[in-house]
């Protein structure tokens, strides 16, 4: 198991009811973290619309997560 800090933004924060939490997960990739949090908080947002960062670096969903990482989950963006 890995200790992963997850940060939620915008719609995800509202769904989760919190902006950050630290979880113990058997996750290998950023996608695994997304799936675990989706199940945990009952989100239905398809992953294809979303973006992810690990430790403040934008990454792809197949990027590996390490023990102690902070994973940032971004719902579909809408600037401008």
């Amino acid at each position: 198991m890995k200790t992963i800090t997850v940060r939620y933004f915008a719609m995800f924060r509202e769904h989760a009811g919190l902006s950050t939490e630290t979880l113990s997960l058997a996750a290998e990739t950023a996608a695994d973290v997304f799936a675990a949090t989706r199940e945990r908080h009952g989100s239905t947002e398809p992953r294809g619309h979303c973006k992810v960062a690990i430790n403040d670096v934008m990454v792809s969903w197949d990027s590996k997560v390490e023990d102690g990482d902070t994973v940032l989950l971004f719902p579909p963006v809408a600037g401008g």
Partner: protein
Amino acid sequence: MLTISSTPIQPDVLRRRLFDPAAGGFCAFEGWVRNENEGHTVLRLEYEAYEPLAVSEADKIFAEAMDRFPYLQALCVHRIGLLEIGDCAVWVGVSSPHRDAAFRACRYIIDEVKVRLPIWKKEHYVDGNSGWVNCERCARAS
């Protein structure tokens, strides 16, 4: 350079910062809060940004624009917080020796800012409901 601002955008101040003795042209885009989206009457908007990554991703966008349409100076300011109808939500300005690069770089920057930066928009409707707006291009790509 991108700035995230919780106070009103001041286009005249920003415009002066782009002055360059070698500039023969300047182009700006302002995104305003409008009163309707997809059939809903919108009362106001609320923007949220994750500033560290918005700034670093914007740096990449500015570098790409410079590669494609070499310009002299460019700035972008994006608002966060609660905005009313008619408020300026985003401002992009570019100065360049000739007009073509200013127009094209400005267009490139605003188009990429809208789809790449971690910025979110919540619409508050006249019926009391509210909703997060999804990125159109991302939705189409899914």
